[in-house]
C-alpha cells in the first residue's frame, strides 16, 4: 500500500475487507483462481503463438549457420548447373554459397504418417561456414564434432536429431526406415545432431545427408531447393550485403525469391496471422469471462457489507475513500490472480504449444518448436492485463459501495447495481446499427499477410454488446410468461421482480445471453462447416479409389508418386478411368500458394467441382485448350481468389522453372482443403513447366461390377508404399479429422454454459442478499424456506429464459457473421448457413435446468440466513 492511499482507505481495507477475507477465505480464493485461469489461458496462448512463429523452420532455413540471404526459386527446384551463373552474377562481392536440397519423406505408409524433413547440404563446403561468423561456430550440422569423411555422396547414411534418437532409442550404426515415392527405404544413422541452446531447436524428424546423396535418395539428381548465402563479417558487411542483394535481384528476381531469413520468416508466418489472431481473441474471452465473475462476486460482497459502509459514511469517510478501498481489493485480487495465472500459464503453454504447433504444421508451415520459452514481455503483458481487467471489474462494485448513503437504512432496500449502460435501450440500438456497418467492411490485409476479418470481429463484438443492452426489453414478456394465470405466489413474486428489474438482473441476463449466444453461434459455424463439407465431399468424390503419397496430410509434405509407380498402377485391370493431380508450392506476389496440374478422367464419371463462379466450359478437358496466344486457362480456388483479389476473366503470370506463364481465370471453385489457395491448370502444361511426371494424388474409377474392396486389397499388396482408400473410407477419414478439429469447440460450449450459470448464481446471491429484508417479510407472511427457494428458482428461470431468447437472436446474427463475413474473409470459404436446432434445444434445456437449479440452491441457502433478525434490530435498537 503506497502513500497515495490515505489512512481511512487503509483502515477500511485492513479492518473490513481483509477481515472479511480471513473470515470467509473461500470467496476471494475462488476469485483469484478464476482470474488466474483467465490469465493462464491468455498467457499460454500468447506464448504458444510466439513459439509457433519463432520456431518457423529456423534450423532448416539456416543449415550453414546464420545465413544472410536466401535464394529460392518461385516455383519448384532449380538446377545445380545454374550455380556458376549465380556466382557470376554476384561478381566480386565476397560471399559464400551453400546449396541446399530441402524435401520430405514419410516415416510410415499411412496418409497421416509423420513427415521427415530431408536436408541435403554440401558437406565439403560446410566446414568453411565456421570462418564466416563472429558469433557462432558455423553450421549446426557440425555439432557432432566429427568430420564428414566417408559420408560424401552417400545416400544411405544420415544424421538424425537428438530427440528422435532418444525417442526411438537408436544411435550411430542403427538403421531407420522411411518411405520415398511409394517405396520403403532402409537408411543407416551416421550420427546424432545435438541441440545447442544458442541455436534454433533441431526439428524432431530431420534427416541430413550430403547433397549428392540426398539428391540420389529422393530422385532429385542435379536439383537444389535453395541457396544460403553468407557474407563474411567485417566493416564492409552491410555494404556487401546490400550489394549482393541488389545484384541478385538484377539477375534473377523474375525466377527467384531473394530475401533475408527474417523476411522469409515474416512472409511464411504471416499466413497463420488470422489463425493466431483467432486464438488470441478466444484467450482474451477467457479473461473477460473471469472479469465478469469477479464483478458479480464483488457486487454481492458490497451488498453484504452495505450496513458497514453506511456506518463508515456516518463516521465521515468520503465516497471517494470508500471507492478507493474497494478498488484496492480488486487490485489485490488482480495482482494475486495474475501472479498465479503467470505461473499456471507458463506450465499450460508447454501443452498449448504442442497443440498449436501441430495445427500450424498441418495448415501453414513447419515449426520446430516443441516448448514455449519464458518471455518477459509476454509475461508482463499478461500480468498487467490481468490486473487491469480485475480493476475494471471491481470499478462498478466500488462505485456502488461509494454511492451508499450515510446510515443507509437497511430496510429501504436501495435497489440497483449493474451497469447503468444496460438500463437504456438507445445505446443498444446504436451499437446494433454500428455493428451492421462493421459487418459490411472489407477485410484488412496486412502487408504480405492474409486478410483478417477485422470488420467481422468488431461487428460481432458490437452486436454482442448491443443485444446485451437490449436484453432488458425482454423482461416484460418474461414476467408475463412467468406469472401465467397468477395463482402461484412464488411465480407471482418472481415475475414481479422483472417488472422493476435491477441493474443486476440486466447484468446477469447479459452474461447468460453472451454465453448462450456465443456457444450457439459456434454450433452454427460447426454445423454449417460440417454440412458444407459433407455436401462438398459427396459431390467431389465420385471415384471409387483414392491414392496418395504417404504423409499427404502435412502442409510441408513434398512426397510424391513417381511416374514408374503410377503408370504401372493405372494399368491394372478393372479401371475405367483415372484423375491425376500434381501440386507444387509456388511463391506469388510474396506469398506462398499452390499450383496444381490436373488431368481428368474422360469416361463420363469425373470429379465434380463446386463452383463459386462457374466456367463456360466445365468439361474434363476444359483446361487443356489454350485460350489465346501463350494464355492458359486456369481454375482458381475461392481462397486464391480472396488472397489475390482475382475474378473470372483476370489474367496473371505464374512462376515456373520454365519462366513466367500467363494464365486466365476461367472459373472459381470452392475448396475447403486449404486456405492458401490453389491455381488449377492442365497437367499437360505443369509436367512440361516443371519437367516432372510424378503425381501427388490419383483417383480411380473402377469398371462396373469390380469389387472395390478386393481391388484395393490387391493394390495394397503390390504397392505397400502408397496410401489407398475407398471412397467411403476417404469420406469417413475426412469427417473424422473435421470432428477431431472441432471437438474443442464442444468443450468450450460446455465451459461457457458453466461460467454463465456460475455468473447467474452469483447474480442471484447479490439479488437475494439485497432483498434480505424482503425475504424476512416473506417469512413473516408465512413463506417456507422451500417456497422462497422456489421463488428464487422461478426468478433464475426468468433470467435464463431471457438469456436464451436473447442469446438465440445473438447466435443467429453471430453465426451469420462467422459464416458469411469472418470465415469468408479470413479463409475464403463459402459455407451453407445451417442451424443445429437439436443442439441448440439441448443447450437451452441444459441452461434452463442448471440455471433453475443454481437459483433454487442460492435461494434455499439465503432463505436460511437469520439476517431478518439483524434487520429488525436495525429498525428499533431494542431487545
Amino acid at each position, binding site marked *: 500500500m503506497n502513500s497515495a492511499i490515505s489512512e481511512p482507505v487503509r483502515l477500511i481495507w485492513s479492518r473490513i475487507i481483509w477481515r472479511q477475507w480471513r473470515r470467509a477465505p473461500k470467496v476471494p480464493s475462488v476469485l483469484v483462481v478464476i482470474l488466474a485461469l483467465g490469465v493462464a489461458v491468455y498467457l499460454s496462448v500468447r506464448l504458444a503463438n510466439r513459439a509457433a512463429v519463432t520456431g518457423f523452420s529456423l534450423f532448416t532455413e539456416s543449415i550453414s549457420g546464420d545465413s544472410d540471404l536466401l535464394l529460392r526459386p518461385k516455383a519448384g527446384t532449380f538446377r545445380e548447373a545454374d550455380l556458376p551463373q549465380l556466382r557470376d552474377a554476384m561478381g566480386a562481392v565476397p560471399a559464400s554459397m551453400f546449396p541446399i536440397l530441402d524435401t520430405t519423406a514419410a516415416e510410415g505408409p499411412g496418409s497421416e504418417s509423420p513427415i521427415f524433413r530431408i536436408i541435403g547440404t554440401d558437406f565439403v563446403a560446410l566446414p568453411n561456414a565456421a570462418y564466416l561468423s563472429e558469433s557462432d561456430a558455423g553450421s549446426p550440422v557440425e555439432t557432432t564434432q566429427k568430420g564428414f569423411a566417408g559420408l560424401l555422396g552417400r545416400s544411405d547414411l544420415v544424421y538424425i536429431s537428438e530427440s528422435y534418437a532418444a525417442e526411438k532409442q537408436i544411435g550411430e550404426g542403427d538403421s531407420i526406415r522411411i518411405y520415398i515415392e511409394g517405396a520403403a527405404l532402409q537408411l543407416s544413422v551416421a550420427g546424432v545432431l545435438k541441440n545447442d541452446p544458442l541455436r534454433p531447436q533441431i526439428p524432431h524428424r530431420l534427416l541430413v545427408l550430403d547433397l549428392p546423396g540426398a539428391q540420389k535418395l529422393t530422385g532429385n539428381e542435379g536439383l537444389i531447393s535453395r541457396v544460403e548465402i553468407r557474407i563474411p563479417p567485417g566493416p564492409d558487411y552491410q555494404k556487401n550485403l546490400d550489394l549482393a542483394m541488389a545484384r541478385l535481384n538484377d539477375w534473377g528476381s523474375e525466377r527467384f525469391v531473394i530475401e533475408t531469413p527474417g523476411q522469409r520468416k515474416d512472409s511464411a508466418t504471416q499466413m497463420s496471422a488470422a489463425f493466431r489472431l483467432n486464438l488470441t481473441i478466444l484467450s482474451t474471452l477467457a479473461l473477460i469471462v473471469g472479469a465478469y465473475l469477479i464483478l458479480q462476486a464483488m457486487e454481492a460482497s458490497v451488498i453484504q457489507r452495505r450496513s458497514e459502509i453506511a456506518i463508515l459514511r456516518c463516521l465521515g469517510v468520503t465516497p471517494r475513500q470508500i471507492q478507493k478501498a474497494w478498488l484496492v481489493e480488486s487490485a489485490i485480487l488482480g495482482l494475486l490472480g495474475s501472479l498465479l495465472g503467470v505461473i499456471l500459464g507458463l506450465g499450460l503453454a508447454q501443452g498449448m504449444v504442442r497443440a498449436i504447433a501441430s495445427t500450424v504444421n498441418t495448415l501453414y508451415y513447419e515449426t520446430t518448436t516443441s516448448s514455449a520459452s519464458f518471455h518477459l514481455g509476454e509475461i508482463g503483458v499478461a500480468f498487467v492485463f490481468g490486473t487491469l481487467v480485475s480493476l475494471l471489474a471491481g470499478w462498478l462494485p466500488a462505485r456502488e459501495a461509494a454511492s451508499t448513503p450515510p446510515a443507509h*437504512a437497511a*430496510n*429501504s*432496500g436501495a*435497489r440497483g447495481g449493474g451497469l447503468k449502460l444496460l438500463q437504456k435501450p438507445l445505446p443498444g440500438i446504436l451499437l446494433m446499427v454500428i455493428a451492421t456497418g462493421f459487418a459490411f467492411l472489407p477485410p484488412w490485409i496486412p502487408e504480405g499477410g492474409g486478410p483478417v476479418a477485422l470488420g467481422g470481429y468488431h461487428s460481432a463484438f458490437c452486436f454482442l454488446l448491443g443485444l446485451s443492452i437490449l436484453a432488458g426489453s425482454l423482461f416484460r414478456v418474461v414476467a408475463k410468461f412467468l406469472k401465467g394465470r397468477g*395463482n*402461484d*405466489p412464488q411465480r*407471482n*413474486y418472481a415475475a*414481479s*421482480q422483472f*417488472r*422493476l428489474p435491477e441493474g443486476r438482473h440486466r447484468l446477469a441476463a447479459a452474461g447468460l445471453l453472451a454465453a448462450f449466444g456465443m456457444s450457439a453461434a459456434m454450433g452454427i459455424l460447426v454445423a454449417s462447416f460440417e454440412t458444407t463439407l459433407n455436401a462438398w465431399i459427396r459431390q467431389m468424390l465420385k471415384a471409387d479409389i483414392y491414392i496418395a503419397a504417404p504423409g499427404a496430410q502435412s502442409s510441408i509434405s513434398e512426397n510424391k508418386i513417381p511416374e514408374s509407380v503410377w503408370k504401372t498402377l493405372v494399368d491394372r485391370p478393372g479401371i475405367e478411368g483415372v484423375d491425376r493431380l500434381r501440386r507444387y508450392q509456388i511463391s506469388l506476389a510474396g506469398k506462398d500458394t499452390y499450383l496444381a496440374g490436373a488431368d481428368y478422367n474422360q469416361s463420363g464419371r469425373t470429379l465434380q467441382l463446386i463452383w463459386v463462379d462457374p466456367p463456360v466450359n466445365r468439361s474434363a478437358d476444359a483446361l487443356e485448350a489454350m485460350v489465346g496466344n501463350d494464355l492458359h486457362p486456369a481454375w482458381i480456388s475461392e481462397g486464391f481468389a480472396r488472397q489475390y483479389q482475382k475474378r473470372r476473366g483476370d489474367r496473371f503470370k505464374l512462376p515456373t522453372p520454365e519462366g513466367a506463364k500467363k494464365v486466365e481465370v476461367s472459373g472459381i471453385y470452392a475448396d475447403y482443403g486449404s486456405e492458401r489457395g490453389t491455381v488449377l491448370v492442365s497437367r499437360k502444361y505443369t509436367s512440361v513447366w516443371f519437367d516432372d511426371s510424378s503425381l501427388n494424388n490419383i483417383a480411380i474409377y473402377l469398371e462396373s461390377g469390380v469389387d472395390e474392396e478386393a481391388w484395393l486389397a490387391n493394390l495394397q499388396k503390390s504397392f505397400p508404399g502408397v496410401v489407398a482408400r475407398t471412397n467411403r473410407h476417404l469420406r469417413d477419414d475426412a469427417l473424422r479429422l473435421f470432428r477431431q478439429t472441432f471437438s474443442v469447440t464442444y468443450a468450450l460450449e460446455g465451459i461457457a454454459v458453466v461460467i454463465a450459470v456460475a455468473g447467474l448464481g452469483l447474480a442471484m446471491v447479490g439479488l437475494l442478499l439485497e432483498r434480505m*429484508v*424482503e425475504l*424476512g*417479510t*416473506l*417469512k*413473516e*407472511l*408465512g*413463506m*417456507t*424456506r422451500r*417456497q422462497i427457494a422456489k421463488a428464487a428458482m422461478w426468478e433464475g428461470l426468468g433470467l435464463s429464459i431471457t438469456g436464451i431468447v436473447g442469446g438465440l437472436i445473438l447466435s443467429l446474427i453471430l453465426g451469420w457473421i462467422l459464416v458469411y463475413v469472418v470465415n469468408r474473409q479470413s479463409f475464403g470459404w463459402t459455407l451453407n448457413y445451417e442451424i443445429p436446432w437439436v443442439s441448440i434445444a439441448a443447450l437451452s434445456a441444459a441452461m434452463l435446468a442448471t440455471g433453475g437449479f443454481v437459483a433454487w440452491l442460492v435461494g434455499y441457502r439465503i432463505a436460511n440466513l437469520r439476517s*431478518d*433478525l439483524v434487520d*429488525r*434490530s436495525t*429498525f*428499533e*435498537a*431494542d*431487545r
Partner: protein
Amino acid sequence: MLTISKLSKSYGETTVLREVDFFMKAGERVALMGPSGSGKSTLLNCISGIDRPDSGRIELEGKSIVEMEERELCELRRDSISTIFQFFHLLPTLSVRENIEFPLQLLGVPEKERHERLADLVGEVQLKHRADAMPDELSGGERQRVAIARALATRPALILADEPTGNLDSTTGESVLELLESVSERYQTAMLLVTHSPDVTGICQRTVHMRDGEIVENE
C-alpha cells in the same frame, strides 16, 4: 388466546427475557412499552416464531409455539399471526392489490374468495383508488394502510405491530391508529402493539411495561 409463561431468552451472556409471564384474550388490544433494550422486540420475535426462547412456553389458541417445527411455524405465520412493521415492509415489486393478495395466495385461498376479500380490505383501508399503485407511489400513511390490509387478509387471531406509527407524522399516525382500532373491533383480532408512543396506548385496553427483560407493570 395467547398465554406466555416463564419465557426466557439470552444472546450469549446477555439475558434479554427473564421468565416473562403474559396473556392476551381474543380480540384484546395490548400496548407493549419500554425503553430500548428492554426485550420488546425479542418477545415479539418469540411469539411469531422467528426467534426460539431458551425456556418457557408460548401458547396460541391452545397450540404450543415453542414446540412447533419450522414448517408449522410458517403455517402459524401464514394463518394465525400477522405482523405490521414500522417501515411497512411492502414487497416493492408488487402493487397494492398484489401485496394484499399475496398472503392469501400463500394460503391457497381460491381466486374468487381472494378477490372478494381483497375488495373488502381495500375498501376497509380506503385505498380502492390506489389498488394498482406500486409501493413507491404511496405516502407513508398509505403504505401502512396497505400493510394493515395485508396483515388482516388471512383473518389472523393475532396481529403483532412493531411501532406501527413510528415512521408517520402525528395526523397520519392518528388515522392509522383509528383504522387499527376499527378493524380489530370488526374482525375481533387481538393486537399486541410495541410502541413508545402514548397515543398508541389510547386505542388499547391494556398497557404492559417492560424493563430489563421483565414485565414490570401491567395496567
